[in-house]
């Protein structure tokens, strides 16, 4: 059983999701059974993810040859500390999202819980696979689940956003396949470890093909991660999505970032001969422009969800800066920041939804409206999440940004990175405090206070639990900072050590 552990984060949501489509979970009236089962499934996945993390960080990275077709021929799953951390992060985020949706969002459409499971299946698979074509398949799994989740509960706004999102991603999938065809034609393999081995000894003409393939892949990953200039879809899509789905989408951009880290460190990394670090000069300026656009966007957004969407873009830019530094220390810092920003933006989306629910027609727009029913509770939650997102001490955002600021070694880099990250943090604080002031302190003159308050729906205990689960992670990351940093550093070392990957796969013997 233990040697099959690595495939469990894929199998549990797949089989669980399929079971939920059958009796005794099928049918509108059996939602209670589905809810219990969904929570049990996600808890089981968290347990497996912890076990994989302990095994991958304690001993060595694990690989799993599906169907026992050994590398480089079969499809290989590979869990190093990086993949294991990200799977744990996904499943933990899934727990928060599922708990939040138990308040009633899951009853707005019939297949909510199975779709969430399929979505998590796709994300886990993308993190665990070590085969580029398999990565494409898992991308499609997570995409088709996200298409359906985006239009969950229906509505004009959602349909329009979904149409754009689906068409863009279908074009992205075509580009992905073009890239894979080019790369396979040039290198002759799609196993990431095998590609890393072969890319340094390509002939002149194949080298050009491999370069084109790598550049096409960057377009795909850039689209997924909302890197400039491929970010236009993100704010609209995330604002239109139902709140728990938007929170789950917070990890989807990070899938793109993870792929950039994996592919351009292992395959097109330092040891790739002529193609070594080929995208670094492109990413470096794009990262700064991405931060700038996201920051300006968050300043001009008229809604809280709009701010949250633009802050996702800022976090993508920050991660790309850390990528462009190309050192293990920077990768470790990026991973730390990635964990923090995923949970923080997810919590921000959920809190924005709760605020919108209690403000009647005003929703989460920044207009003067009535007082919130749970003013103090939501106010404190918003205050905390704003501090976390903006990166103020004592929360995890501070730690993540500090590590990224410490990563560069050259003075010129330091100047650029300090100004970009600190300025964007300042603007984020301004944008969020403007939002908070309007929502919590400025109210319309009350005509009938009792009626107004009765109109607002109560907060469900599940919604509060979901938000708190995500929020509590931030101080925990700070308290156990030493352990988390140690873990991310180990992950970064394992990622940058290409020889380790090739050794684990025992590819040298095949040569």
């Amino acid at each position: 059983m233990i040697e099959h552990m690595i495939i469990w984060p894929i199998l549990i949501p797949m089989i669980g999701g399929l079971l939920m489509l059958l009796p005794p979970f099928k049918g509108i009236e059996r939602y209670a059974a589905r809810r219990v089962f969904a929570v049990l499934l996600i808890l089981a996945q968290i347990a497996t993810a912890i076990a994989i993390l302990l095994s991958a960080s304690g001993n060595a990275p694990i690989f799993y040859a599906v169907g026992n077709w050994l590398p480089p021929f079969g499809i290989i799953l590979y869990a190093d500390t990086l993949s294991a951390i990200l799977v744990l992060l996904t499943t933990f985020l899934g727990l928060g999202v599922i708990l939040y949706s138990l308040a009633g969002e899951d009853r707005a459409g019939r297949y909510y819980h199975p779709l969430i499971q399929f979505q998590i299946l796709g994300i886990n698979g993308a993190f665990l696979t070590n085969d580029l074509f398999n990565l494409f398949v898992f991308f499609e799994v997570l995409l088709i689940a996200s298409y359906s989740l985006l239009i969950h509960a229906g509505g004009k706004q959602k349909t329009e956003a979904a149409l754009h999102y689906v068409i863009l991603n279908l074009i992205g999938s075509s580009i992905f396949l073009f890239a894979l065809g080019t790369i396979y034609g040039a290198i002759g393999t799609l196993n990431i470890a095998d590609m890393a081995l072969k890319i340094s000894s390509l002939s002149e003409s194949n080298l050009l093909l491999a370069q084109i393939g790598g550049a096409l892949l960057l377009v795909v990953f850039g689209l997924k991660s909302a890197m400039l200039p491929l970010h236009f879809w993100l704010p609209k899509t995330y604002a239109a999505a139902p709140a728990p789905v938007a929170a789950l989408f917070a990890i989807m951009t990070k899938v793109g970032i993870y792929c950039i880290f994996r592919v351009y460190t292992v395959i097109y990394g330092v040891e790739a001969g002529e193609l070594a670090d080929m995208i670094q000069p492109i990413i470096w300026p794009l990262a700064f422009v991405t931060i700038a656009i996201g920051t300006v966007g968050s300043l001009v957004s008229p809604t809280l969800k709009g701010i949250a969407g633009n802050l996702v873009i800022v976090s993508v830019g920050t991660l790309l800066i850390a990528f462009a530094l190309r050192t293990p220390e920077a990768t470790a810092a990026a991973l730390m920041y990635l964990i923090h920003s995923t949970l923080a933006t997810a919590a921000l989306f959920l809190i924005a939804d709760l605020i919108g629910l209690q403000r009647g027609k005003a929703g989460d727009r920044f207009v003067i409206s009535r007082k919130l029913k749970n003013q103090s509770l939501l106010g404190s939650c918003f205050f905390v999440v704003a501090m976390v997102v903006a990166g103020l001490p004592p929360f995890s955002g501070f730690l993540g940004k500090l590590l990224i600021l410490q990563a560069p070694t050259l003075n010129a880099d330091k100047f650029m990175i300090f100004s970009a990250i600190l300025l964007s943090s300042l603007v984020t604080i301004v944008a969020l405090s403007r939002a908070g002031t309007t929502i919590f302190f400025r109210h319309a003159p009350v005509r009938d206070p009792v009626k107004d308050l009765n109109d607002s729906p109560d907060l469900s205990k599940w919604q509060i639990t979901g938000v708190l689960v995500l929020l509590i992670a931030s101080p925990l990351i700070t308290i156990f900072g030493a352990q988390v940093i140690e873990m991310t550093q180990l992950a970064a070392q394992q990622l940058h050590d290409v020889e380790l990957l090739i050794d684990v796969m025992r590819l040298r013997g095949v040569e």
Partner: protein
Amino acid sequence: MELLYVICVGVLTFSGIFLCLRARTFPVVVGLTMLGYAVNMFLFSSGRLNLEGAAILGMADKYADPLPQALVLTAIVIGFAMIAFVVILSMRARADLGSDLVDGSEPPDTRKLVKSKRGDA
């Protein structure tokens, strides 16, 4: 054969991209389908084109690479499912948004532009 193949893939990709840039959902869906065909043919050719080569060892003197064939099969199945989804979604969008435009409504300035031109004539 190579030339014919390249022209086919090129023309399909060209028409696919052209149609994807149209404003209404029907041409966009057709464009996505064409792009799908183009990419499938392209993937197939990534194992190099050769005639009378068997994909199984010991059957013939020449061998064809079986991996691109497997990849194409997977890509066809996935592409088919995705096109089915986008067809249903665009029908839903036609009902929800009241028009078959990708943006839901016609951009206002182009309409003005057309009207002013008509006025001149």
